[in-house]
């Protein structure tokens, strides 16, 4: 399985290495650097690189490459999934997963990696168990540790690993018992030039923050479970009950976790909450281009469209953009040719627009492609698919928990072709 792990930063330095079997020389990463050089964009480095004696499987997260070295046949997804889990754990522990954070906490990182893999095979990857073994560093704890000389390694033994509910810590206690669920839906869509939808899908997740004492057993039911076309669960969800009754029944992990992610079938028509009117043109011969963009709300069910952000990669020939935004601010990066326009909230009475000219390189011919426009937005208190949670019940504990459910719709990969 996984032999070694190298962490490589954006500038190509190995800043951390860890070996689970015999030491593999870091020169093996040279093959990786070669591939990195060949790829024009950082994300174009192939995830799997064969070398004469090893295979390198890498993931790129937060501008850090996590390069795993393996020696023999193993499902590549197995390694990739594990590496992502490592990153998630780091993020969970340090808040951010940056080179600096990892360097600062190198000992914790090492301890974590030691627990997560044994001889290259995953051992404990549940964040609840890991947190029991190794306490996440907080400012207060670091202070206390330096003064008293106590450790951040849990005194407790990892009893959670023995449990049948390995995802839940034992002995959880809270004074305020609360369970919050966020239903977040993302619209993935491609809109073509004329404004008609080419594809639109809804991907949703239910993220939970459960802080309940003891060993609660929760059931969550939906008003319209049939909407959910394809679902994937946190391991805590009892699959059989879902199959039979379309009810989510589970013993939750402690803290934040993703309860389920789902897909609303593409057969259903997806309501697109915004529309874009655009007129982007370059004239042959002149060094000017016109840029005209207007946004407007559409099918929002009365909810406001907020946090709208428009971005577009303009053609290489564009030197500068001289635009006028009726609302919000825009920036244009002449190096990357990236135009971003932070619109904010859309006011249906006064539609936001961005108009002006683009100056092109003198003498260059008219770019033959029109830029794609990526849009981000948010609407609160609404799940666009119409999914509604019916009720949440708790069994197994006596107290009354505080329950809350929030709905939100966001743009996922929302693109408008022009």
């Amino acid at each position, binding site marked *: 399985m996984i032999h070694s792990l190298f962490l490589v930063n954006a500038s190509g330095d190995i800043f951390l*290495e*860890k*070996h689970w*079997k*015999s*030491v593999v020389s870091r020169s093996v990463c040279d093959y990786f650097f070669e591939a990195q050089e060949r790829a024009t964009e950082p*994300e*174009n480095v192939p*995830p*799997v690189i*064969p070398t004469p004696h090893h*295979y390198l499987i890498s*993931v790129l997260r937060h501008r850090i490459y996590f390069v795993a070295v393996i020696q023999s*046949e193993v*499902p*590549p*997804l*197995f390694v*990739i*999934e*594990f590496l992502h889990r490592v990153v998630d754990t780091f993020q969970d522990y340090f808040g951010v997963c940056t080179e600096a954070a990892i360097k600062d906490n190198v*000992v914790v990182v*090492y*301890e974590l990696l*030691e627990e997560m893999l*044994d*001889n290259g*095979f995953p051992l404990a990857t549940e964040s609840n168990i890991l947190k029991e073994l190794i306490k996440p560093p907080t400012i207060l704890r670091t202070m206390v540790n330096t003064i008293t*000389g106590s*450790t951040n*390694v849990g005194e407790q033994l*990892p*009893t959670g690993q*023995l449990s*049948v509910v*390995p995802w839940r810590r*034992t002995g959880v206690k809270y004074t305020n018992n609360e369970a919050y669920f966020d239903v977040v839906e993302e619209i993935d869509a491609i809109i073509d030039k004329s404004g008609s939808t*080419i*594809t639109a*899908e809804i991907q949703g997740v239910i993220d939970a923050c459960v802080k309940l004492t*003891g060993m609660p*057993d929760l059931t969550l039911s939906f008003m319209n479970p049939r909407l959910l076309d394809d*679902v*994937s669960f946190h391991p805590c969800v*009892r699959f*059989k009950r879902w*199959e*039979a*009754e379309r009810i989510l029944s589970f*013993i939750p992990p402690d803290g934040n976790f993703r309860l389920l*992610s789902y*897909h609303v079938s*593409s057969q259903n028509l997806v309501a697109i909450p915004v529309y874009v009117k655009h007129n982007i043109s370059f004239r042959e011969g002149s060094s000017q281009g016109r840029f005209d963009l207007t946004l407007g709300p559409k099918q929002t069910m009365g909810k406001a469209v907020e946090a709208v952000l428009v971005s577009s990669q303009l*053609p*290489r020939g564009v030197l500068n953009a001289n635009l006028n935004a009726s609302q919000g601010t825009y920036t244009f990066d002449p190096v990357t040719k990236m135009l971003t326009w932070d619109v904010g909230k859309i006011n249906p009475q006064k539609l936001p627009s961005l108009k002006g000219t683009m100056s092109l390189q003198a003498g260059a*011919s008219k770019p*033959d*492609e029109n830029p794609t426009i990526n849009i981000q937005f948010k609407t609160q208190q609404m799940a666009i698919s119409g999914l509604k949670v019916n009720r949440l019940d708790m*069994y*197994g504990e006596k107290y009354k928990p505080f329950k809350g459910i929030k709905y939100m719709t966001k743009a996922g990969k929302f693109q408008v072709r022009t």
Partner: protein
Amino acid sequence: MLDSNKDSLKLEAMKRIVAMIARGKNASDLFPAVVKNVACKNIEVKKLVYVYLVRYAEEQQDLALLSISTFQRGLKDPNQLIRASALRVLSSIRVTIIVPIMMLAIKEAASDMSPYVRKTAAHAIPKLYSLDPEQKDQLIEVIEKLLADKTTLVAGSVVMAFEEVCPERIDLIHKNYRKLCNLLIDVEEWGQVVIINMLTRYARTQFLNPNMNESLLEEGNDKTFYGSDDDEDEEEEEEKKSEAPMPKRKPYVMDPDHRLLLRNTKPLLQSRNAAVVMAVAQLYFHLAPKVEVGVIAKALVRLLRSHSEVQYVVLQNVASMTIKRRGMFEPYLKSFYIRSTDPTQIKVLKLEVLTNLANETNISTILREFQTYIKSMDKDFVAATIQAIGRCATNIGEVRDTCLNGLVQLLSNRDELVVAESVVVIKKLLQMQPEKHSDIIKHMAKLTDNIQVPMARASILWLIGEYCEHVPKIAPDVLRKMAKSFTNEEDIVKLQIINLAAKLYLTNSKQTKLLTQYVLNLAKYDQNYDIRDRARFIRQLIVPTEKSGALSKYAKKLFLALKPAPVLESPFKDRDHFQLGSLSHLLNAKAGGYQELPDWPEAAPDPSVRNVEVKDSVQEVRTTGEGRISLLGEWREVFTLLERVATLTSVPEWTKCSSREKRKEKKVEKPFYSDSEGESGPTESADSESDSASGSEIGSGVVGSVSGTASEESEEGSESEEEEEEEEEDEKDKKMTMKKELKKPVQESESEQSSEEEEERKHERKKSKARKSDSESESDEDEDSESESSQSESEDSESEAEVKKKKKAAQSKPPSKPVKKESKKEMSLLDLDDFEPAPSPQVTPLNSFLSNSLATDLEGLSLSDAVLSPATLSPCSALKSYELLHRIRGEGLSVEYCFSRQPFSPDANMVAVQMQFTNNATSETKNLHMEEVKLQSGMRVKEFPEIELLPAGETATAVMGIDFCDSTQAANFQLCTHTRKFFVSIQPPVGELMRPVFLTENEFKKEQGQLMGMNELSEKLTLDAECRNEHAIVQRVTAAANLSRVPCGSDRECRFAGRTVTSGSLVLATVATKEEAAAQLTVNCEKMVIGTMLVKDVLLALTQ
């Protein structure tokens, strides 16, 4: 600092050392100082020392030995976690000298009480193996032992060890196969991946190819291919031919174990772990019957939302799958559309998938998408798109011209790369049909002035050379230009210039002779030896000299031979010989340690190897896999229970839940055992039984995978009901104290384990009886099994019927019963299978099958509803017969008909009409048949077979089928004898237009809820004096309409259900009795006309 007494200082020192290790700096000098601290009290220091030790022990073997004793002490620690961690570190130290110590420790740990320690032992096995491969034999023993382990914790790790140490020892898996399948869903996710991959390989060696038949059919019954298949196979084939009208049936029987694997892995498609999903997907792809593979598509498409690395791997696999099973992903075509923000490698892969998915129906949308892609800024991607268009064009003939035109337009693109790529693709396309496209060639010839990309230039030159006949005027001109710039061209272009020159020389030597000479001279002095060689070769070949006579004759043939058009293929073709999802598949090269996916065996190896010895007490006649599995489940449960006792002492909190879950698991297994158990929907469980029973017992190979899946679903359904029950029970349990809870399940399971199967059943029944208070009534249960007998599909349920029969003997039997029974037998036979005309199993008395005690037990149970049962069993004591032809009118021939209420076997949509012919005349009647059927549109009639001879005074019966199309319109026809014709007509009462269906009370309510409003008719009535009890009501209603009784909780209501024969719409009737004779009749039916008529008829039946 390490020598300090203070832990905090030591810790600080260790932290620095670890930081050094992390940065890759050598810290081996400090080894002695660090090793001293291995016995340090502080846990963190200890852990960091371990980290250090594992890292450097290999380099400093002697010094590392100093620490070994500490670990050996740790191995004896009473705390399981300390034992485990000691073993873990010990086995991680790569020092050859300690191999014997490690071996000993692993062996000991493998039989440790704690599953966690056993898991660690499993982890240690591959470590030791890599250190000293000579220990293999001993290690295999340990693996064998651990494979038999029944905890989920161990399963994943030991299979991982198995894969690493001895993947070839597939025989070790046999005994554990079913257990692994059943445990799978509870194993941690990483273990799942390993187990699923292993089981895929295992299944490939042990089961037959489920798609065997399809491949046979595809090959046009090419038997030589599978010639070595055993005789059974051929027989099956013949059977297949003989039963051509019933295409549903397949001769292939899936091994129940194979089915078990597919069934147990399916829920894992819902896992959040992409690796697990992929593992299941590849398992289905490699193992499942074609019809079932589709389920994985949805899950794989979902993974496309994940990180780009995951997308990359998934798309690679999808691309491979789409080549073989295109239909699977077609509905998800749009999910593969490309976004401008995707990384290039993802774009290219998506393009590959889109190209593979293209067919005649969707090509236009795909091409429209491609058009937008061509405008992309990412030039590599544009090039790939052009290639993709080329492939679409070659694969789908209809769009070839469109594509070609599109590509030609691209030739005027400003980007050179795009143009070059399109030239290359056009070249390939033109090669397929050059005649039509000389103008394109001309256009391209003009491009030579502009295009600088060597590959494109070369392609154009080749094209012109190849098809110089089509462009006789331009070709020499191009050569002239090229000759001018020859020295500045790239090598590949130079070669093509020489080529062009040679070809032109051969076809048009007048114009080009000098030019060719010139070019060849230039080439002669080129720097590149390939070009010099080629020039020399061509000169010898084409320029006629005295010396080279022989070859130059053939020069024309050599150069202008017709070249086969290139086939544009997906790079993913044939990749699926690698196991999907594997590293080797991804790289399209065998990775180290890759285990080949074996081919399907031609004959299934003995399935009994997977049988596990069971205790004598549970030996049962049944040989189905399921029976045994349930036992396994039970064992495992006992085991886990014991274990829980062990671990409970330390951590009490989660036990509640654990016991809960375990017991739920136990519950889940149960339906296999006692098929007639109360709570699980009896018809459903009967179904599932029939699958297994006919699969292995009848062995004639009838049950296709279709019924398999059906039973699967139904099983799940019944399981869930169980769970519900469990939930309720649990509520109560919660209130109990911990101890009680602990004791109870132990007892329960123990008693279960020791009891025999029969007793088990009884036990179950009693239990269910005791539990009856909650939802379903006694009558319910009995009703259920009653109807089961009427629809009996399996031997098991037939035996049920037998029990009922016996029971009936004790009660008063209505006179019409035997007749009814017979008809039922017929039905069940039909349902079972057509080509097994052997006497039905019911003929043999099975009374001995059940002990008397059981029978009495059953009787006791059914006492309460004794009133009901006769009514349901004999819905019509005397079939009402109608006159078709009177004796006088028919000149001595009289015909009566009745609706036999049996399904008409040749066509299920027809109503069976039984006709009775009586010849009252003195002479015999010959050739009795029917003619000139006059029907309303839509109606159909299946004529009765001609009765050749009906002697005087005799009676004959015949059955005909009429499809009334759910209307009461009459069927008119002529009844002909050898002398005369009679016009007759048959008009059905509305009650005969339906057939009974069985519904449970809940289903009934649900259906009724859906048929409200216009579809509901209700009528108040006063019951006839003789018809005031339930029994009479049931009898009258069932006499009036062919409906079956639905179990009902209250005794004031009688419910009936049926479906119309043709359209199958549901007909529900309810008679609610009130005080005295008042009652209310409610009929719910989708077809309002039927409903109204039925109300009338039933009303009449009840009031008279």
